[in-house]
């Protein structure tokens, strides 16, 4: 395992947090109640906090003179390795909650394994993040139940969101070359080992929410190889705007 492998592995974990945080922060001030607004902002803040810990560590590992911001803002689209799920738009509150729940359960299982990493830095970040993500998962899971077993309208909307976003769940368990090398070295997690438990957990909750588990067998993939949906370019052009318009400045 080279430093390069490890850096790429860290990027791919952190990019999920960064891009989902970016999506959530678009909502700040526009939520259905003040309380949900505050709660979702908390989740975004946690995700950005995690992103910073990962990128600071990745910057340390790098031979170049990099900062967390260089990594966050100055890569090309193909170098972001987040899964397609997290870049999906804020179509409505049902999509926001389902996207969140689908990610949170994966995120939780991943961090629980990453706590056992042979790498102390990753261990520590995982330990700290796990507490936060346990809360995220409870928040999104509770809302999934409310929407599923709420009104007829909420039931329909959340079922539609589940059906549409289901196709992005399989990619969570894909491993690119760096992932495999880092997992083999005992530093990273073998994502494929999380898959059965993941589908068990989300299927149970979907049923508990009086909703149906989709029987879709075709999945979308690409993010882990840097091949994103059309949404990604717009996310980045907003996120990178200042750094590109005013290069090499301190903020």
């Amino acid at each position, binding site marked *: 395992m080279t430093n390069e492998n490890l850096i790429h592995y860290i990027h791919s974990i952190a990019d999920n947090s960064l891009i989902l945080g970016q999506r959530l922060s678009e909502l700040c001030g526009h939520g*259905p109640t003040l309380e949900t607004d505050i709660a979702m902002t908390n989740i975004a803040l946690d995700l950005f906090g995690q992103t910073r810990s990962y990128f600071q560590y990745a910057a340390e590992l790098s031979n170049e003179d990099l900062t967390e911001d260089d990594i966050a803002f100055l890569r090309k689209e193909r170098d972001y390795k987040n899964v397609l799920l997290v870049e999906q738009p804020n179509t*409505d*509150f049902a999509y926001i909650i389902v996207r969140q729940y689908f990610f949170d359960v994966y995120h939780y299982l991943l961090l629980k394994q990453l706590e056992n990493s042979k790498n102390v830095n990753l261990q520590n970040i995982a330990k700290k993040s796990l507490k936060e993500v346990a809360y995220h998962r409870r928040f999104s899971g509770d809302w999934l139940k409310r929407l599923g077993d709420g009104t007829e309208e909420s039931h329909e909307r959340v079922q539609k969101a589940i059906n549409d976003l289901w196709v992005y769940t399989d990619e969570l368990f894909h491993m690119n070359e760096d992932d495999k090398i880092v997992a083999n070295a005992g530093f990273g997690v073998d994502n494929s080992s999380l898959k059965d438990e993941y589908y068990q957990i989300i299927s149970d909750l979907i049923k508990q929410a009086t909703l149906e588990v989709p029987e879709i067998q075709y999945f979308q993939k690409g993010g882990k190889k840097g091949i994103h949906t059309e949404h990604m370019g717009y996310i980045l052009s907003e996120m990178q705007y200042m750094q590109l318009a005013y290069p090499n400045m301190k903020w």
Partner: protein
Amino acid sequence: MSNVEKNTSQNEKSKSLEDIFEAKIARDEKIEPKDWMPEKYRKTHIRQISQHAHSEIVGMLPEGNWISRAPSLRRKVALLAKVQDEAGHGLYLYSACETLGISREEMYEQLHSGKAKYSSIFNYPTLTWADMGAIGWLVDGAAIINQVPLCSTSFGPYARAMVRVCKEESFHQRQGYEIMMTLCNGTQEQKDMAQDALNRWWWPSLMMLGPTDDESIHTEQSMKWKLKRKTNDELRQQFIDQTVPQADILGLKIPDEDLKYNNDTGHYDFGKIDWDEFWQVVKGHGPCNKERLKARNEAWDNGAWVRDAAVAYAEKHTDDESIRKAI
């Protein structure tokens, strides 16, 4: 007892209640929601506290506009946390106001229909990153000047909310000033950005302290109830005296040719405020009044089915305590 006699004794009773009430305020004791209060006191407080709450909530929008474009992760997190604080302020203030017998839904309805006012400053657009610095420095700065006296206002729930709010506002102000400082220590482009933001936010910030005293309708009564301790003009002077030296440290120029330190008064003299612009914005014709109200209305309308679902779920699952509490 005849009707006339009944009314007279009713009047005497409320007269003595009012005396007790006024005496309490004069002794600097707090009025609590369960205490007797004159109808006018209740109404005035509902108006002021709900307007204040609306200002916090609408105030999230201009700064929220830059979260996704913040130039660094550190700034992004700080801005997001700041805007979240404003949501928290709105929440305490709506709760304080609810103790006076108005529901949050009613208050929202007043905001969304355009009937209720909120601070006009939030009807100006945020055009560059430097606006995040200028708003923290000037707008949160002016808010503190307005609000510190309210920490000892007569209505207990409002006073207590203000103590918490003011602590966070002063943190926001320092954060805003620090953004300005970083820009002013940066490249020429960054300095220009900072100066441009000051140019655009200076006069609206002065207006934020309210119309000039002879045009302010509520001042006298509000003074008695400690809703106000200084007049708008006094507060404005305090803001200017405090802010000019801060601009000097930044190396920025306040956009007022008439601004000059007056050795006799010990205060800064300043130029004429464009009150026509102020009233235009107050009356709903500022640069972003329509956008701000539209954003609030959309958030509320798009959230209706979500709130309905939460209520329906809670009714079906009365056993599920954690779910009920979380709504």
